[in-house]
């Protein structure tokens, strides 16, 4: 298809698409205009009966806890798939691994200012991540958000141009363990509900006082479990991708 034909086709289809979009957008309710009964029920139920002040986390870990279980295993399966494919490509060899990690890889572009900045960023990111995991049921945040922020902390070591130092701080076995332990912990917390409350993933822990760190039943536990899994999952994906060129390139040199 030549450029002329494609442009002609777009000239016909474009206005049609625009018209349909405009008609669709015209029928939308205004921002903040809400008529669903479900939202009102949740707003009433979660702070009152579950003592959770962050409704988003309450939805994820209480009302839709089973959906979260599925999402967790989607993440787990996809990260396992990435690791499986990329390690096969790299033709992983334990002996080669140990001989490679003698000297550190340094980026030419990592200036002193960038290295200093990343040093400052690491503790900030890690403490923010821990805060988000622990306060999931109280303030905006929760397991997933905590996980991605926690994973970004060690990634700042890469910013300083010290990739092998990152692999020493967060070795692959540790990331794998964190990923699987987090996924398993969430499923086991659900099993606790089955044993103590006779429904899978039903809350079986004391609810505490609203606004306290140890409140909202099993939500803080779920938040920590998901945080652990997401940290491992993201760091493992990044390490696998970066291994592809940073380590192999050293071997080829």
């Amino acid at each position, binding site marked *: 298809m030549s450029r002329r034909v494609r442009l002609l086709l777009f000239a016909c289809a474009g206005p049609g698409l625009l018209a349909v979009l405009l008609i669709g957008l015209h029928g939308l309710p205004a921002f903040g205009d809400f008529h669903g009964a479900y939202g009102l029920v949740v707003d009433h139920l979660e702070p009152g009966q579950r003592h959770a002040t962050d409704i988003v986390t309450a939805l994820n870990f209480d009302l839709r806890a089973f959906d979260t279980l599925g999402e967790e295993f989607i993440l787990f399966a996809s990260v396992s798939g990435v690791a499986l494919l990329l390690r096969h490509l790299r033709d992983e060899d334990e002996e080669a691994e140990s001989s490679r990690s003698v000297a550190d890889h340094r980026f030419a572009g990592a200036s002193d200012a960038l290295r200093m900045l990343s040093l400052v960023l690491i503790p900030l990111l890690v403490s923010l991540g821990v805060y988000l995991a622990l306060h999931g049921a109280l303030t*905006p945040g929760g397991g997933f958000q905590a996980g991605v922020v926690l994973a970004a902390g060690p990634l700042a070591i890469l910013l300083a141009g010290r990739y092998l130092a990152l692999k020493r701080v967060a070795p692959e076995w540790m990331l794998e363990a964190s990923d699987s332990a987090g996924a398993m912990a969430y499923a086991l917390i659900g099993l606790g509900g089955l044993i103590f409350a006779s429904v899978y993933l039903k809350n079986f822990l004391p609810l505490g006082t609203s606004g306290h760190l140890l409140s909202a039943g099993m939500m803080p536990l779920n938040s920590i479990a998901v945080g652990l899994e997401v940290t491992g999952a*993201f760091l493992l994906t990044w390490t696998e*991708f*970066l291994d*592809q*060129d940073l380590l192999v390139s050293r071997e080829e040199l």
Partner: protein
Amino acid sequence: MTALQAVALLVVVVAGTAIVFVPDPLRQALVLSMFGLALTLLFFVFQAPDVALSELVVGSVGMPVIILAALRKIAKHADLREEEEKEGGE
């Protein structure tokens, strides 16, 4: 809709369009990172701090890192193939 929300929407539109019009994939990854920051701002001013927190890391750091690593690998493969072709020709 407040002025802040309108500005955030506009920034997202500009940044999203910019990604499409940048020709070099390497620069595209960096513009994508900026787009991630713009989306973070958008989610935040539309009162979704939970989503903004995830987007902050996934959109502005997570995706670009993976794209940059993949680009480096592809460039290296292209170099190797060129060398092989040269050797084969001699």
